[in-house]
């Protein structure tokens, strides 16, 4: 019989993430793809890819839990689904053993989650019905500026005189960006201004008790945002390993809980960064 593995699937509005972990909470395999329009097919493709990376056969899956917007669309998850907030909390409780604030920047949702010293969720906040400061905001701006998303981090770091954007609204921010282009502002300064806007929007959602940890695809691909956040909160902000997979890992941990209800580890897995 193969070694049991536990799968978490995070089907987000923008990206689908899958994580495969073992009973020791170690990440064995993972995959990320655009969610597209067929959530189930994307999740299945991500699962195959992550199983291959883990070197595990499908029949080794002891349990699987889904989360994210498409959590109900995964045909092969027969156990349960959890909210992203629950999964991020479960991840934080597993990886950090102190009071933390998790700031997750997703495709269209920002979340600020506070865990107490025992790893219990003390409170959480999501952005209101507005995508300002989310991944969708950066995607929109990359389209407007005709800059590849993956190039933004490097451009922002080249800035010498950041352009500040005042609008709360993504569409009006785009107008401000165009105005700055007309006024001859440099692209790196505008991109840094966009990053600043993202950080500001998410930080102003709530206060930030304890260690601050940032997760989500935006910070995974733009670590400069984490550095900016650290400057703004006045202390280093943690960018853990696999920031984009945090929700999927949390879902996998819930899957593990199903077979091992007291499987909350007291040790930190090797390879995790704690800043």
């Amino acid at each position, binding site marked *: 019989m193969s070694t049991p593995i536990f799968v978490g699937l995070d089907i987000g509005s923008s990206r689908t993430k899958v994580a495969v972990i073992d009973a020791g909470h170690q990440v064995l395999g993972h995959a990320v793809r655009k969610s597209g329009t067929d959530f189930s097919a994307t999740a299945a493709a991500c699962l195959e890819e992550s199983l291959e990376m883990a070197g595990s056969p499908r029949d080794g899956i002891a349990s699987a839990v889904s989360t994210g917007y498409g959590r109900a669309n995964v045909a092969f*998850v*027969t156990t349960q689904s959890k*909210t*992203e*907030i*629950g999964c991020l909390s479960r991840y934080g409780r597993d990886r950090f053993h102190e009071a933390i604030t998790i700031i997750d920047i997703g495709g269209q949702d920002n979340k600020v989650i506070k865990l107490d010293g025992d790893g219990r969720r003390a409170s959480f*906040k999501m952005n209101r019905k507005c995508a300002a400061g989310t991944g969708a905001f950066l995607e929109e701006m990359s389209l407007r500026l005709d800059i590849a998303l993956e190039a933004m981090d490097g451009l922002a770091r080249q800035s010498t005189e950041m352009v500040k954007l005042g609008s709360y609204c993504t569409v009006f921010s785009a107008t401000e960006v165009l105005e700055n282009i007309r006024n001859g502002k440099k692209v790196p300064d505008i991109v840094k201004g966009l990053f600043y806007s993202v950080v500001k929007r998410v930080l102003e959602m709530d206060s930030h008790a304890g260690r601050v940890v940032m997760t989500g695809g935006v910070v995974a691909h733009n670590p400069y945002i984490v550095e900016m956040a650290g400057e703004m909160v006045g202390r280093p902000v943690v960018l853990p390993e696999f920031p984009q997979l945090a929700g999927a890992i949390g879902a996998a941990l819930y899957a593990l809980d199903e077979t091992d209800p007291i499987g909350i580890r007291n040790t930190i897995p090797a390879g995790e960064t704690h800043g």
Partner: protein
Amino acid sequence: MAEEKKTTRKKIHAADRMNRIMADYFYGLNEAATTGKRKVAWCTSVGPAELLHALGFAVHFPENHAAMLGATRMSTDLIPEANAIGYSPDICSYLTADIGAYLKGITPLAKAYPGIASVPRPDVLVYNTNQCRDVQDWMAWYSKRLGVPSIGVTSPKNVNDVTDAHIDDVTRQIEALIPTLEGIAGVTLDMDRLREAVALSRECTELWKRVLETAIASPAPLTFFDGTIHMGPAVVLRGTREAIDYYNVLLAELEQRVTDGVGAVDGETSRIYWEGMPVWGRLRQHSELFANLHSAVLASTYCSSWIFPSFDGSDPIRSMAKAYLELFIVRSDRYKEEYIKGMLEKFRIDGIIYHDAKTCPYNSNSRYGLPGRVEAETGVPSLVISGDLNDLRCVSDEQTKTNVEAFIEQIAEGR
């Protein structure tokens, strides 16, 4: 994913009876307006309805009509009609939906009650600003449009303790309405009839309170979502015998549920308090959302707003003034905090949800730090959801769902 068994809240059998008396009420209004047998007054929901009943008016409540526009999901298409004539999308969506419906010449009454073509044309418009200034503007528009007088009471706001000075002020304002109303009604106010109407309102309110307090039981026999529907008679038939008869029947059914240990939601595992307005166009969805999580939303400020303990038939006008002033929405944040804390304890609440209604700041108590203060003092976790009473463009279903599910998870894991 395996198909989950859906949990829905249990049907309240008295609802059929309520539907009949509500139908009688609307047909009665229609008859008054179309035959001219009785004068018609439009009244804000916590306006001086008892006075109007005593003077023989048939009473229409535009807020009730606006809630129907919301519940039938007609409002979102109607609000822009009012926006187009200059009413901001940010003001009361009851107002904008109702005016929009008038401009379009449509009403959900026509579909629900064959033979009714429109809302009843008013002979007078009567408001009380105890809820908000918007109701006065709402009546002002109809006054100008229809050429009928708009009169009312301007109430103080942010009241901590309701004092004699407050009551004197509102009493005088109610008294000042009487000559105008007598002139329109063509009768002199019979104080005995007013005493009777106020006494009936008192009886109605006491029964409604007992209905709501059946939810102290665990499992709770009714939910907030039932309450929003079943408070209909308390809103539109306050001051009449029909409302009292109905609540006696409803109360008996709910008390039987308590005796039998029957909950409105199967397997009640968490008890939730709802602060703020309902999202009228999402009542069913929200009811199912909570029921599927085995969570009972069993108490609220909103449904409790039709409890008026100060009505006193022996001192009708002054007791009306006091009752209208003691309304939660009239009160200071200090009072509101104490009230909510009392409700959390009384109903043994596990979590409180604040509905931040985009167009109703007066019924959104999440904007000045109140949730944080209450949470810090009680330890009861809270969640703020963004939405609106009638404008579904301000509602994000997926975000609401995720927030609520995460909140119930949090409560479960906190135990």
